[in-house]
């Protein structure tokens, strides 16, 4: 039974308005249960306030579900937003500035964390290296040579007093000099695996159960180049090398490059910079503004995988080394562009030339996923002629067929086939290069090629030969006699060239 909230009159079922006062009321379709108590007498008094809505549960339960959904939506949206931002928009690797990149790399070495280290490396130079590391780690674990992820379980290193000095060498590249650090190296012999018991005994005899030593940067031998100074002839006290030569210590540095606002260490660029300083005429290193320019250049690609080798040969014949590099993925080639002029200038000055005749090239392709294509070189016959003005041409012929190859130049001829043990142990029965699909075309990917060969070696090497090789190394170190390793090689391979003639 229902009552009018305005005048308290009993309402018959189905009415929309109170028959006594005309107040609109919710339709009553069925007789509700009687009220617990009769309406108070005051309820008959006229009411001036707004109509009271019919009761529909407590206020708490009315708000609880929407509020709960709101909170959960907020939590869920926050987590999903964070995930999407981290994966698709935030840079996973690199550092905010060149100093930070190098400091973080020292920290990664301390923690022996390969992924942390890879995150700081120029992506083009780090790509897929983790897969190789995983394969290697798995093999070492399966051979009981290690049990955890540390690169070297028995050893650890701690760096302190790290001092860096950054010099911007272009808008997007920096040279970070490592001016000072102290490294404490600790070695715990007991953590060497049981599998290398011979090595462990030998090391324990040499250094005891634990060994610790502290080094500073001054304990390391700096890379050096020499210049000749006639004024120094006869005064060899200042030279460690030879009378008249002056040695120049280069010190320790790391090249760091910027990509999409983050800074990455470039191992190839660092190596090339050292090489340029040591080998170039002016010992000044690379022109890193070329790196900035390379970032804005379009890659040069081949339309089909099978065309890549032909196109590379044509580019090499053209003698433009910058364009030749642009046929390699830009993240790898851009860090080498600063050094092109060191090759290009003497090449042009001496009017050198190169002619490449591809007499035969049979290839097959294999999809590797991730935009990579393996190009098997089934058979090849390539003639290479070096031309130099005022000198006679030099000719070299290289050939390949299946697992056999040959070379021939003006003086020598040699041919060889991959030994049976190599085919058996690694399952490698031919040569290949790895190509990367870039902007609808294909480029040679040198890093992916090296990683693919290394992966084949790591995963393909059989358990039995690996077992016997580890035993041979273990015994050789324990006994200080390398005959065990030599014997292993004699048993497993015949590495001599089958046929070799000198004209």
């Amino acid at each position: 039974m229902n009552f009018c909230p305005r005048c308290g009159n009993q309402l018959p079922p189905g009415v929309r308005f109170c028959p006594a006062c005309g107040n609109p009321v919710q339709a009553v379709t069925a007789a509700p249960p009687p009220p617990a108590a009769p309406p108070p007498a005051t309820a008959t008094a006229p009411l001036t306030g707004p109509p009271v809505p019919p009761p529909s549960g407590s206020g708490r339960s009315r708000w609880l579900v929407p509020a709960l959904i709101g909170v959960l939506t907020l939590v869920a949206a926050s987590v999903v937003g964070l995930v999407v931002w981290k994966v698709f928009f935030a840079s996973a690797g690199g550092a905010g500035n060149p100093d930070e990149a190098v400091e973080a790399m020292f920290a990664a070495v301390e923690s022996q964390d390969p992924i942390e280290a890879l995150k700081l490396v120029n992506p083009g130079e780090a790509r897929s290296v983790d897969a190789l590391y995983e394969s290697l780690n798995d093999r070492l674990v399966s051979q009981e040579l290690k049990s955890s992820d540390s690169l070297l379980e028995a050893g650890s290193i701690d760096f302190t007093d790290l001092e860096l000095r950054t010099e911007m060498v272009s808008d997007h590249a920096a040279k970070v000099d490592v001016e000072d650090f102290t490294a404490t190296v600790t070695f715990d012999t007991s953590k060497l695996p049981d599998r290398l018991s011979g090595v462990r005994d030998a090391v324990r005899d040499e250094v005891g159960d634990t060994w610790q030593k502290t080094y500073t940067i001054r304990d390391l031998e700096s890379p050096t180049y020499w210049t000749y100074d006639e004024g120094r002839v006869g005064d060899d006290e200042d030279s460690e090398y030879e009378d008249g030569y002056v040695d120049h210590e280069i010190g320790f540095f790391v090249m760091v490059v910027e990509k999409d606002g983050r800074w990455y260490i470039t191992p190839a660029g660092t190596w090339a910079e050292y090489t340029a300083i040591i080998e170039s005429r002016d010992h000044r290193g690379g022109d890193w503004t070329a790196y900035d320019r390379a970032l804005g250049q379009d890659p040069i690609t081949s339309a089909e995988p099978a065309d890549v080798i032909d196109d590379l040969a044509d580019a090499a014949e053209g003698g433009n080394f910058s364009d030749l590099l642009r046929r390699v993925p830009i993240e790898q080639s851009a860090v080498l562009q600063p050094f092109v002029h060191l090759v290009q200038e003497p090449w042009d000055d001496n009017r050198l030339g190169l002619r490449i005749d591809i007499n035969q090239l049979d290839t097959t392709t294999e999809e590797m996923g991730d935009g990579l294509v393996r190009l098997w070189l089934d058979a090849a016959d390539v003639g290479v002629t070096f031309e130099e003005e005022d000198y006679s041409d030099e000719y070299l012929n290289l050939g390949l067929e299946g697992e056999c190859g040959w070379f021939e130049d003006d003086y020598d001829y040699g041919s060889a086939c991959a030994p049976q043990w190599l085919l058996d142990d690694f399952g490698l029965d031919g040569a290949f290069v790895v190509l990367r699909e870039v902007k609808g075309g294909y480029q040679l990917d040198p890093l992916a090629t090296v990683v693919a060969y290394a992966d084949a070696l790591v995963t393909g090497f059989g358990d039995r030969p690996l077992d016997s090789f580890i035993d041979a190394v273990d015994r050789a170190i324990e006994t200080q006699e390398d005959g065990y390793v030599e014997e292993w090689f004699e048993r497993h391979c015949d590495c001599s060239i089958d046929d070799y003639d000198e004209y």
Partner: protein
Amino acid sequence: MPAVLWAAASGAWLGQVFLPWTSRGPLSRATPLEAGALRHDGVLGSVPASVGWLIVLVPAVAAILLVTVPLSGRAWRVLRSVLAGIASAILLVILASLTRAEPDRFGPGAWLALAGVLLAVGAFASSVVIKENR
């Protein structure tokens, strides 16, 4: 009871992205978030590209599941079961890919994700039991 289990399952699936999935190997110190980002940047080759996407899909499905937990009705119950099924299937694919389904390689993230699957199974079972009792 099922609501608590559904919430716990989706919470586990949201939380797993912040924990490493493997106990050894190169990803043993990287969370799925970092792995997905590095995969997206093309640095990680040990993680298949498809897994890079699936890593993002799981928390998205878990988020929808979490939002539906307070809602009652047959349609929502069916939706929750379907979402849980999808998330569980994806997680098993990721588990097989990242840890090769070897329990000794499971890291805290993998265990938490598996706990989420068990909680989801429990939530599904208890919701079926409650429905039959009605």
